[in-house]
Each structure stands twice: as structure tokens, then as C-alpha cells.
């Protein structure tokens, strides 16, 4: 059944623009903060949210620390390691959990039919999407700040034991270093953008398994294709415009001149992907029956 349409005019054909029951003035009454509060309550009271966020933070730090610990620069060898980027390796794993959280935010409502209740109570669908985006971004930002801080701390503590010492041109990972601050802020923003991208894709696809498959495929398959594709022109294109490759350029602090895409430009590419996903998702949300 076409959920929102039945509340007012059940004779409407399925393909018609769904009718929104409440007049604009009533809609305005439950806009803004109320939507945010409603979405916050939903996400807060869902069992998995806290666990997912805690797991995101923990996994990011553990993977970063393990990677840093597994790295060795034997005495006498010349090592080219970007210590900041290395310390932030866990972000590659964190994005999967952020994507799961974002997909669940939308798809759980579709799988349980809750979405019809939501749209009956709050007919401004774009407002609902914005509310979900706002709550999700807040949560992801909070988790990401803790995760990134933990990663950098782990790098600072473990890297000297790998032989990557200041004496050999690898100063301690420190927030007094401009590019490292940029990388840290960028990594936090990266995760937030990945969350919003996943939210957009989930709104488009609606089924949780399909949506998570699509998002993770986009995040993980493109970089590996870029790594092995034989054609250098395509390799460069994928490295410049793939969401993961471009977005993670924000974590680079050395050899910036040789990057396929600059740090902020790369994050901009990811932002463009996110905007496109949210735009299409928002459009479909308005046009389709729930």
C-alpha cells in the first residue's frame, strides 16, 4: 500500500504525487528542532547505535595501533612513511561501521514499516531526511573526534619504537604541526561525509543489505581497481575521482606535490559524491511512495 497517500485520499493512483495531509502551517509547527529530537530519540533508543559508535572508535584506534606497531624501519634503510597517514589507517575500517550505522538509520524504518508512521507524523519528508542527517552527523563527528585523537596518540607513542624517530626525519606526530592538524580535522570530516553519503545511498536503495553492499562496494572496490588497473589514464582518473581515494588524500602530510589530487580538493570530491547521493535520495524520497 502507498503509506502516506492513504492517510488522506486513498483513491489516489500509486504513481501520483503523494498528498501531504497537513496544511503548511501545521508542518511548520513540528519542523526544525522537533524533527531533530524525534530522530535523536529513534536513533538513541535503537539497540545497536551505541555499540556501533563505540565499536567504530575502538576499531579505528586498534587497527591504527596495530598497523603502526607492525611497521618497522630497520636501521640504515631509507623509509618513506607518512607517519600521520599511517597513524590514521583505522579510518579505512571505521568508514565501514559508519556506513552500517547510516544505512540502519534509514533502512530499519523501511524494513519495519516505521517509515509510514514517521511520514504521517512529519509529512515534510526532506525535513525528516535533514533531521536524520543532522543527528547522524552529530554522532559520527563525536565518535570520529575520539577515534582520531586516539589514533594520533597511538602513533605518537608507538612510532618511535619502530625506528621512525625524529633523528631520522620523522618527528613525533603532533598537533603543533599544521598539516597534521589538517589531516586530523579532515579525517573527522571524512567520516561525517561517508556517513552522509551512506545515508543518501540508503535513501535511494531502501533495502539494508543492498544499500550496505552498494556503499561498501563503492568505498572498497574502487580503490583496489585503481591500484591494479593497467591503463594509467584510468588509474589516475580513479585516484582523482573515486570517493575513497580522493577523500583520504586529506590524511596525507608528505609528498603533497605528487598526490593525484590535493587534500582539500580530494575532500571536495567526496563532498560532491555525498551531495549527489543526498540529492538523488531526497528527490526519490519526495517522489516515491514510502
Amino acid at each position, binding site marked *: 500500500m502507498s503509506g502516506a497517500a492513504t492517510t488522506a485520499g486513498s483513491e489516489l493512483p500509486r504513481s501520483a504525487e503523494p498528498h501531504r495531509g497537513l496544511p503548511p502551517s501545521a508542518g511548520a509547527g513540528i519542523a526544525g528542532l522537533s524533527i531533530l529530537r524525534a530522530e535523536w530519540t529513534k536513533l538513541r533508543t535503537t539497540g*545497536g547505535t551505541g555499540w*556501533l559508535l563505540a565499536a567504530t572508535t575502538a*576499531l579505528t584506534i586498534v587497527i591504527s595501533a*596495530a*598497523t603502526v606497531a*607492525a*611497521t*618497522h624501519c630497520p636501521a640504515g634503510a631509507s*623509509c*618513506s*612513511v607518512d607517519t600521520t597517514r*599511517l597513524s590514521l*589507517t583505522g579510518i*579505512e*575500517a571505521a568508514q*565501514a*561501521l559508519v*556506513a*552500517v550505522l547510516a*544505512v*540502519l538509520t534509514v*533502512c530499519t524504518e523501511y*524494513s519495519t514499516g516505521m517509515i509510514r508512521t514517521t511520514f504521517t507524523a512529519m509529512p515534510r519528508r526532506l525535513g525528516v531526511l535533514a533531521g536524520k542527517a543532522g543527528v547522524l552527523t552529530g554522532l559520527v563527528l563525536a565518535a570520529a573526534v575520539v577515534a582520531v585523537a586516539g589514533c594520533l596518540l597511538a602513533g605518537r607513542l608507538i612510532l618511535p619504537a619502530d625506528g621512525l624517530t625524529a633523528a631520522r626525519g620523522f618527528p613525533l606526530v603532533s598537533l603543533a604541526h599544521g598539516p597534521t592538524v589538517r589531516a586530523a580535522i579532515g579525517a573527522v570530516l571524512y567520516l561525517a561525509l561517508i556517513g552522509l553519503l551512506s545515508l543518501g545511498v540508503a535513501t535511494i536503495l531502501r533495502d*539494508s*543489505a*543492498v*544499500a*550496505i*553492499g552498494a556503499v*561498501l*562496494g563503492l568505498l*572498497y*572496490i574502487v*580503490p*583496489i*581497481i*585503481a*591500484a*591494479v*588497473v*593497467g591503463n*594509467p589514464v584510468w588509474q589516475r582518473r580513479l585516484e582523482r575521482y573515486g570517493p575513497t581515494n580522493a577523500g583520504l588524500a586529506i590524511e596525507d602530510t608528505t609528498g603533497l606535490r605528487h598526490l593525484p589530487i590535493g587534500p582539500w580538493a580530494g575532500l571536495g570530491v567526496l563532498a560532491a559524491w555525498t551531495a549527489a547521493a543526498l540529492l538523488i535520495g531526497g528527490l526519490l524520497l519526495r517522489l516515491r511512495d514510502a
Partner: protein
Amino acid sequence: MSTGTITPYRAPRRTGNDGFWQLLHAEWTKFRTVRGWLIAVIIAAGLIVGVAALLPRGSNQCGSGSQSGAACLAKYPIGPGGEAVSDSYYFVRQPLAGNGTITVRVTSLTGMYSDQGGFQGGGQAPGVRSGLVPWAKAGIIITQSTKQGSAYAAMMVTGSHGVRMQYNYTSDSAGLAGAATAASPRWLRLTRSGDTITGYDSADGRRWTKVGIAHLSGLGSIVQAGLFATSPAYEQSNNPNVYSEPGGSTSPSIATGVFDHVSLKGAAAGAWTGQFVGDGGGSSDGPNGVFGKSTQPGFRHVGEQFTVTGYGDIAPEVAGDTGNDTISDHLFGVFIGLTIFLILAVLFITGEYRRGLIRTTLAASPRRGRVLAAKALVIGVVTFVLGTAAAALAVTIGLQLAHGSGIYVLPVSWLTELRVMAGVGALLALAAVFALSLGVILRRSAVAVGAAFLTIVLPYVLGASGALPREAAIWLLRVSPAAAFALEQSVPQYPQVFNQYAPPDYYPLAPWAGLAVLCAYAAGALGLALYLLRRRDA
């Protein structure tokens, strides 16, 4: 709701049709009748094949020259073991009939290499340095003939790996360590007795140590014995700290060995003749005058002393920096197909939880372990069959396309091909069983798919894309379920050939070890799933 400790109700008696075959049939029907899943498995198999066709790797020998296509296909000689080999060296030889012994003293091994890549004709090019590549070789050799790919055994001093005995391209054993100099020379000896050749080394020419024994079949009564020098191309990796095959550059090198106390005992006839064996090993490592007129392949015989200069290599061909492909390069789509199979395997169980069908399933067949076994068997067999078939097609098509565009694919035996194809099937099937178990454990599709990606896909991406430092990547590809990608490796790594050994051609674990790692993960997850399925309410 669930109280955790209470054992769920189970029907006290079996009711009619709950034999395992019926259960298997029921699960197969559930899988077969969801049209989206059928389409998805066909797409997954199609991607495995399609990517082989769309993503050709490697490069041919022509570079950006005027020739292209099959005309550029390298023609490597084939060694006695069936592998493609490089067999180019400068040879100062005499025919030797029947059994005999050749002994020399090596007093020096020096060389030059260029670190500028490419060639520049005329005079000594810029970027030429004095020094040896690690596997520059000079020593003595007994070979069936001067035809490339012949059976041989050789004793040699090397650039930085001491004295070695090598035979038939793939075998290598170490002798005395350290370089050969006038102050500390190296004595080398090879003795032929029938089809057996024994190698010895010595620091003083009196106390000899056996280094190795080679059994060469079909050596013939007359063999060629003598001195040789060769030097493989100098390889520069863009970033040696990364575990991937980077676009490194190769440039020519050349080596000169100085010998004295040369003695050939046995039915040897005639004088020493010099000859360059091979055609320079393709275009990429021939010096073409890079090192100037004074350093050309050849030999001088002054009094007791022989000076032999040569380049090339006597070793198996490898993939990687050389631009050669292996059949593993055509299996890149397996990783993409895997992502779809993972999602399907998760949905195969979480779909039942979402729709409540699981309660009907468990009411119909209360023995929960059997239900899980039937599900695992169905999804495992489907992925194994499709995966193996898709891999077979991908390898066949990839081989045709690579040859068509002049890219050399290292030949392997049909048994190895079969192992790789069935290995892909096994990799996909075990990964699917692992994902199914995650689905039982976590019950929510998005969470289970996320977990499957985190444990299999992410380690492969991090390990094989060069995103991690070398040690971390190798560690990840040893301990994570992604270790099973080692099943795709088709040619061995040779320690005696300097190369960037990295995915997708080479993996840190042996194929069967990689399979065992994934087996362990799948078995562990299946066990936990079984335990939870029995304990929890559905």
C-alpha cells in the same frame, strides 16, 4: 522475549519428512526461487569473467613503439621444468665428452649499471655507475647445449649473495658467503658423472665443500663446459616500502668476472671459444653501448687469466616489474564477485529473520544444526560451482586477450591452472559460509554484511592496494580471512630473482596455508553460529 537461559522448545519426535535430503531440497528451493538472488549470482559470476576481459594488466615488450598487439609478445625460452626462463649470458666454452671436472679460481666480480632507465646509444650514457646488481653472476657452468632453455648446472659468485650453486633455472643453494676479491678469492668446481653434477666451493683450492648435487635428465654424452658471466637488469622500485607492484623502472647492467687456475679435466677437445648465448633477453636489459665501447660482452684470455663480461640472466622469468602477467592477473574480478556472494550469503539467513520465515523453518525441521548445515551446503556448493566455472572462463579469456595485445602470461602446468580455478571456487564458498555464519550470529543484514566486509574485503583492500606499509600488509594477508587469496597465486616466488613480489601475482602465504586460514575462520564462525542458533530464541 528471549530469556537467554531457557532452552527453546523442540518437538519430542520427528514428524515425517525431516531427512537431510528433504532439508537440502527445501533450502535449495528457497535459494532458487528468489529471482533477485539468481540474478545476483549470475551478475557476480559475470563480473569475475567480465573484469578479466575489461581490465588487462601488464605491458608488452614494445612500449610505445610502432609495433603493437601479438607482434610484441615476448618469446621466452622454456626451461626443463616447463617454466618460462631467461637464459642469456656470455659463455667461454669447450665441448666435454663423457664425465669430467671443471675447476676455476674467481678473483674478482665487478660491474656497472645505469639508474636512468632506457637506453641511449653511443658512448657511455649519463646515470651509469660502478657496482653490481645483487644477482650479477660469474662462474662455471656445464650445460646440455648453447640452445636457450637447456638443462644446466652452475657454480658462481654473485653480486651480494655469496657463492651459489644453481641448476635448471629454479634450484638454488648457498655456498661460501662474501664477495670474491683478489685477497679472498673463491674456488669453484663442477664434476659431471653421468646425469649427476656435483658442485663444490673452496676458499683456498685445497679444502673443498660440497654445495649441491644436480640430477639432470637427458644431458647427452657431449656437454658444453666453461666460464660464464651475466647480470640481470637493475630494478628500481618507486616505493620499496609498499607491498604492491609499483611501476618501477628497469635499466641495463653488466658484470665482469676475472678467473684463473682454469682447468678442465676429461675428454675436452679444442680451444676456448667465446659466444653470447641468447638474444640479449629481449630489449629491456641489453646494454646496447650504454656502458661505452670498453665494456662490451666478450672475453679476454691473457696468460693464465680469463676476463669474461656479460649481461642477461640464467633464471626463471617472474611477474611484477617485468610487465609479465600470470593467470592471477585475470582473476581480479574474483574480489568484486566475492562482495556480491558475501551479501547473498548473509541475506540467505537474515532474510528469514526479517520476514519471520525462520520460525516456520525451525518449526518444520526442529533440528537446528541440520538447518544450518543444509544452508551452508547449499550456499557453499552454489558459490563453489559458479566460482570455479567463472574462474575457468576468466583465465581462458584473459589468456587470449593478453596474448592478443602482446602481454606475456607466464605458463603454468594444467594442474596448477586447475588448482587456481578450484581454489577460487573454494575461496568464494568458504567466504560465503563465513558470511552465512555471521548472518546467523548477528541476524541483522546491514550489520552482518558490514562485519563480512570488515573481515574479508577490508584486509584484502588494505593488503593488496599498497595503502599500508609492507610489513603491515604482509601481516594482514597472513592472519586475516583474506589470506585465502593466496589460492590465486600461480607461479612461485624465487628468492634468487630480485623482484617486487606482491599481489595480485604473489601472496605472503602458500596457497594451501591461505586456504587453511580461511577454513579456520569459517569453521569458528560456523561453530559459534550453531551454538547461538541452538541457544537463542528464533
